[in-house]
């Protein structure tokens, strides 16, 4: 199934003498050339495929703004809140850097979820992309941990109490739970030592993410992109060079994404946050509703849906780990939901369930909210563990096209025919 490797083509022939010298010693230019310039990309990719690029862009934005904020932030319990205000008030463009970083986390997660759902819909996790998919789930996990620790750093009321609640989850572990929590805290409660180590780890993990992203892109380039029709490229007519075709398409949607990003940063910068986090952390007063940021809400809902503490924590962990098993849980021979009409319905229900879980996560765990959270949690797990395995066996799928180029040129005209009327252009 593997149809290309990065070293197996003629490609980069430097004309410049210095580049020839360098290429012989460290073929980095050739690597970039083969991976991002001439790299064959399926020609039928739609805009849902730009989110990988958007994620890389957001990672860079978060790292750059993060490093720059780290030049001014002070990670001690007494200074943290005021140092963030110092950034907002005194540091040149500090307000901009802080709002970009805080809202950037939301934009990062939004892109990650879109990217994930794209994978679910088009079967991007299926053979031979299992490792690629698992690396993606690992990246999601790293993002979740990094984001959690980052949110603690401003040391507001939500920072402190979210840290308390989430670290307390580990006390559910039998026998060693309490020791783990004390070990995480570095004390008898969340405090200065906790803040300091979260800062160190929050600075470190993004670079771990960079490393895993490299593996993720490597794994991708070995097997090639999936595409909306879910059929592998067969001839060179099925692909286009990454640059300029994919590059310019990615750049366009990246800018549209930046417009949404700018809307938050400049006009509603505190919309996605919680006003309680502008109250300095007070270990003596718990906020009336402890709510995580929106991107954790579905998991929070699942956690609270289970009445038992240990089972709730297990369900929380399972909700992410079950994603790793997906390549083996889905038994369908057809990849893309375009040709799986029944799967499509269940997929959309799953999407609504995830959004619903997110909404329920923001509500107090009372009354019918709990009931619905339980129903939705059941569907969440059933989707992976029951529906997908069964569906692959019983579903009547549509026939995928013979090739990508055939799918692109649905009217069957060969490539090279003078350009048809504009309404037939597929790109």
């Amino acid at each position, binding site marked *: 199934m593997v149809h290309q490797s990065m070293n197996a083509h003629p490609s980069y022939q430097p004309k410049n003498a210095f580049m020839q010298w360098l290429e012989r010693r460290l073929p980095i230019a050739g690597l970039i050339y083969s991976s991002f310039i001439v790299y064959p990309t399926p020609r039928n990719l739609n805009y849902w495929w730009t989110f990988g690029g958007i994620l890389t862009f957001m990672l860079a934005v978060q790292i750059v703004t993060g490093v720059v904020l780290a030049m001014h932030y002070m990670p001690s319990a007494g200074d943290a809140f005021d140092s963030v205000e110092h950034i907002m008030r*005194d540091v*040149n*463009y500090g307000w*901009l*850097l802080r709002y970009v970083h805080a809202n950037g986390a939301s934009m990062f997660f939004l892109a990650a979820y879109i990217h994930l759902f794209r994978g679910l819909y088009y079967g991007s996790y299926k053979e031979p992309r299992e490792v690629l998919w698992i690396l993606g789930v690992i990246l999601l996990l790293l993002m979740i941990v990094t984001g959690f620790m980052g949110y603690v750093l401003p040391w507001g009321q939500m920072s402190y109490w979210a840290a308390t609640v989430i670290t307390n989850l580990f006390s559910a572990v039998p026998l060693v739970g309490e020791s783990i929590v004390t070990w995480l805290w570095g004390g008898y409660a969340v405090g200065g030592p906790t803040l300091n180590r979260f800062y160190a780890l929050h600075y470190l993990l993004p670079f771990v993410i960079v490393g895993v992203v490299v593996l993720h892109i490597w794994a991708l380039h070995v097997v090639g992109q999936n595409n909306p029709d879910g059929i592998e490229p067969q001839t060179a007519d099925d692909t286009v060079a990454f640059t300029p075709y994919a590059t310019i398409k990615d750049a366009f949607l990246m800018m549209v994404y930046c417009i949404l990003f700018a809307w938050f940063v400049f006009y509603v910068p505190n919309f996605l946050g919680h006003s309680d986090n502008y109250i300095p952390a007070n270990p003596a007063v718990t906020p009336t509703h402890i709510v995580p940021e929106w991107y954790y809400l579905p998991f929070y809902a699942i956690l609270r849906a289970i009445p038992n503490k240990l089972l709730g924590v297990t369900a929380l962990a399972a909700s992410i780990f079950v994603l790793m098993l997906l390549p083996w849980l889905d038994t369908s021979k057809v990849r893309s939901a375009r040709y799986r009409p029944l799967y499509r319905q269940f997929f959309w229900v799953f999407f609504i369930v995830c959004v619903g879980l997110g909404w329920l996560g923001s509500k107090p765990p009372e009354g019918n909210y709990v009931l619905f959270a339980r129903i939705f949690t059941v569907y969440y797990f059933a989707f992976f563990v029951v529906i997908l395995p069964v569906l692959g066996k019983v579903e009547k799928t549509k026939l995928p096209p013979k090739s990508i180029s055939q799918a692109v040129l649905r009217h069957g005209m060969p490539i090279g025919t003078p350009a048809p009327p504009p309404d037939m252009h597929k790109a």
Partner: protein
Amino acid sequence: MSSAEPTRRDFLYIATGAAAAVGTAGALWPIIAQMNPDTSTIAMGAPIEVDLTPIAEGQVIKVFWRSKPIFINHRTKKQIEEAQNVDVAKLPDPQPDSARVKPGHEQWQVLIAICTHLGCIPLADQGPYDGYFCPCHGSVYDTSGRIRQGPAPLNLALPPYEFLSDTKVRIG
């Protein structure tokens, strides 16, 4: 392809490239600017006022302005004479004493106490000229703070300052 087409296409590409360059520059500017002193640091560097009455004749005090050490030296008559009776042309960094004090306040020497060699703080009332001596590499300054011997290339610098009265000076 007519010759008009490449021009139109090229214009679009050039415009897009130019916009990309402008956007990159605009995005980079805050990243660079944030390293400049912030407004609270600049405010902390506001001028300071020093009361001169407690400084006895012959006494040197050290104050800080913009985190730099400042010597305020209440020079004796002997020190003032030594500073003035000098062949300016023979000095490594020629400068008359009159250019290093405020008229009418020759007894007050206000200097930035940072050796012009590599930045150590010199010691006051030391050295062969009864001025300042830098222990790091042996630079010797006279009672006007001018370099006389040693590796330092320039006289000790003067901060901006003015006398608000005979007993009060504002530095900065």
